[in-house]
């Protein structure tokens, strides 16, 4: 297909091309056939811009061999629709539904057109991301019913769970259809923590939006802030100093370690092994306290900023981090031994919640869960942005696709990240922490793409007048992986659901946004 690709400046390997309606579908087909992945799908209202009169844009970002390929389709106001790609990329189904809820542009030919993010907070026919949307004219919040798929048959009954769950976790609704204690079908309904983040970005400047991006999913604050910073630097033409890049990688690996420590404890706990929770949460607390002592924030929020980082570390702190990483490594190896030899624990982990590599590939499972199901992609190794090129990240992977595989990938990545922390601390050059930012040119576009602990965080920004953000879209990898949990639980027993769900540990806030 003959498209004119424009390479975007900056750290993320991103190219962009305009497509027509026929090419939109053709591009999706070619990516699918070439083994590529859909990373994100979103839209923007450009009707008020003189050069784009009466037009919206719909974007799809694909991971291909050379990096990230973004195609942009212009859509007329008179017929706001675009061709459905959910047949090629099943993960796009919910993204397309969300795009319609927010912008009023539908995927023509899509089988499922139920609302996804619109639960009743805004009425049908009103679209928050349109430029002429007026929140002050909204009717009172209404509670709309949702058309769940019913499973019929002898002895089938339903268990509705949520939105408020029994544990300390985010809200979402799960509708189980079961026979006895065996799950026949699970249907998820999400969107409960939709906070209107994409719209909220419009009241931030490009230079300041990293704070909001860092709260798309709090557990991935570094990943999102870095993806945002990449996007902002790309559109501003700013180049972060070398030292800042190394500190960013350090923060990202620290975030990965903190989350993996927490998840490993919680996974043990969900298999009734409370010892694991106590031990790993102790290690995580030590880790977070060190983050607070060195960088001023336990969860490392607001440290990655467009143009660099807000905080570095000195030689004493470097030594402290190296020493601590060795200590955690020693304990993690000890605990891994205990996990491995614990028959009861392995019995709960093995073959539970399987996603086969074939299914993972077809449905587009990504990130950590993808790697546990034979999908060997990790941006840090595949498209190493500085400093990852020098660090030579060893990709973790497994093929079994069960809870045990996701536990093992976490152990492998935990140990690798501890190694990376030491390598980064040793390799971080001296120099400035951030550069001054030029003012954003209206219409400028940038994108960022970072491998967070859960998977790839993606951010696209379009600048508006006066340095403001006109449109910013943040995409969490949970979008891709949520639908796979519906498959992973099939045939398992209901009491294993929390364990299976935890083994993916997807973000509700990130997908609801």
């Amino acid at each position, binding site marked *: 297909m003959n498209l004119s690709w424009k390479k975007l400046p900056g750290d993320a390997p991103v190219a962009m091309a305009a497509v027509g309606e026929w090419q939109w579908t053709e591009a999706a087909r070619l990516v699918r056939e070439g083994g590529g992945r859909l990373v994100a799908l979103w839209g923007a209202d450009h009707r008020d811009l003189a050069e784009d009169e009466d037009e919206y844009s719909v974007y799809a970002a694909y991971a291909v061999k050379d990096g990230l390929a973004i195609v942009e389709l212009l859509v007329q106001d008179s017929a706001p629709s675009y061709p459905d790609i959910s047949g090629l990329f099943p993960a796009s189904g919910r993204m397309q539904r969300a795009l319609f809820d927010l912008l009023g542009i539908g995927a023509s030919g899509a089988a499922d057109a139920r609302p996804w*993010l619109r*639960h*009743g*907070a*805004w009425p049908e026919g009103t679209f*928050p991301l349109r430029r002429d*949307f007026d*929140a002050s004219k*909204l009717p009172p*919040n209404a*509670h709309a019913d949702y058309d769940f798929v019913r499973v019929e048959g002898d002895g089938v009954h339903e268990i509705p769970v949520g*939105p*408020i769950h*029994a*544990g*300390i*976790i*985010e*809200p979402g609704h799960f509708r189980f259809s079961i026979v006895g204690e065996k799950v026949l079908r699970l249907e998820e309904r999400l*969107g*409960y*923590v*939709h*906070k*209107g*983040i994409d*719209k*909220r970005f419009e009241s931030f400047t490009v230079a300041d939006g990293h*704070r*909001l991006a860092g*709260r*798309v*999913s*709090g*557990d991935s*604050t570094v990943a999102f802030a870095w993806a945002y910073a990449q996007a902002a630097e790309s559109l501003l033409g700013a180049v972060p100093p070398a030292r800042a890049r190394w500190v960013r990688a350090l923060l990202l690996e620290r975030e990965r370690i903190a989350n993996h420590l*927490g998840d490993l404890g919680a996974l043990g706990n969900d298999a009734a092994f409370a*010892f694991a*929770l*106590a*031990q790993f*949460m*102790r290690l*995580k*607390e030590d880790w*977070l306290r060190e983050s*607070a002592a060195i960088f001023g924030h*336990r*969860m490392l*929020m607001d440290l990655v900023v467009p143009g660099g980082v807000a905080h570095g570390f000195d030689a004493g702190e470097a030594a402290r981090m190296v020493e601590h990483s060795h200590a955690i490594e020693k304990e993690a190896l*000890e*605990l891994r*031994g*205990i996990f491995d*030899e614990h028959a009861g624990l392995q019995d709960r982990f093995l073959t539970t919640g399987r996603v086969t590599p074939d299914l993972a590939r077809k449905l587009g499972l990504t990130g950590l869960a993808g790697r546990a199901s034979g999908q060997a992609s990790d941006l840090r190794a595949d498209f190493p942005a500085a400093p990852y090129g020098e660090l030579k990240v060893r990709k973790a992977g497994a093929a079994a696709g069960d809870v045990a595989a996701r536990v093992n990938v976490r152990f492998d990545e935990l140990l690798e990240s501890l190694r990376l922390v030491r390598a980064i601390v040793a390799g971080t050059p001296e120099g400035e922490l951030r550069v001054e930012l030029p003012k954003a040119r209206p219409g400028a576009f940038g994108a960022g793409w970072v491998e967070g602990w859960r998977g790839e965080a993606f951010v696209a920004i379009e600048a508006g007048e006066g340095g403001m953000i006109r449109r910013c879209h943040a995409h969490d990898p949970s979008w891709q992986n949520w639908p796979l949990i519906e498959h992973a639980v099939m045939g398992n027993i209901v009491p294993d659901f929390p364990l299976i769900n935890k083994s993916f540990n997807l*973000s*509700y*806030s990130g997908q*609801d946004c």
Partner: protein
Amino acid sequence: MLHILRQIARTGIVSEKAPVPDEELRVRAPQIQAEILQLLGRALAIRQVDAGSCNGCELEIHALNNPYYNLEGLGIRFVASPRHADMLLVTGPVAKNMENALRIAYEATPDPKLVVAVGDCGCTGGIFGESYASCGKVENVIPVDVAVPGCPPAPLAILQGILTAVTARGDAGGR
């Protein structure tokens, strides 16, 4: 088994001292009699409700359950249903899509009940504010007794907020 016991013995007891209550965090005058608070303070059941948070506050509430804070040693535990709870611990700006669920959870919690709003978002709406999708602070939807600022507040600050809520006014500061 030996490995597990050895690891437990090696770790020892890491629990730290609990913080003292802070009257500054109180949003409204105590609605519950001092005697009842004395009773609740010794055995407090909390139902946590994420009404729209970014999940940062949830991570810190989770951390409260780690051995350093020894929550259960203080008589505090998290329960699975608001019907079993004395207190709702609410995070997030209240997403419009969670407004209904939060109200239902509040009504399901038996009287006398306490509400602690956690995090900048729960206190003021935070970075998300009020919008087509967000009701803003928790107090805009249900009554709040104590609000704990921070983005996210550290576990110790959350614990301090919880303890403030179960302390009758005047108890704090040794009066």
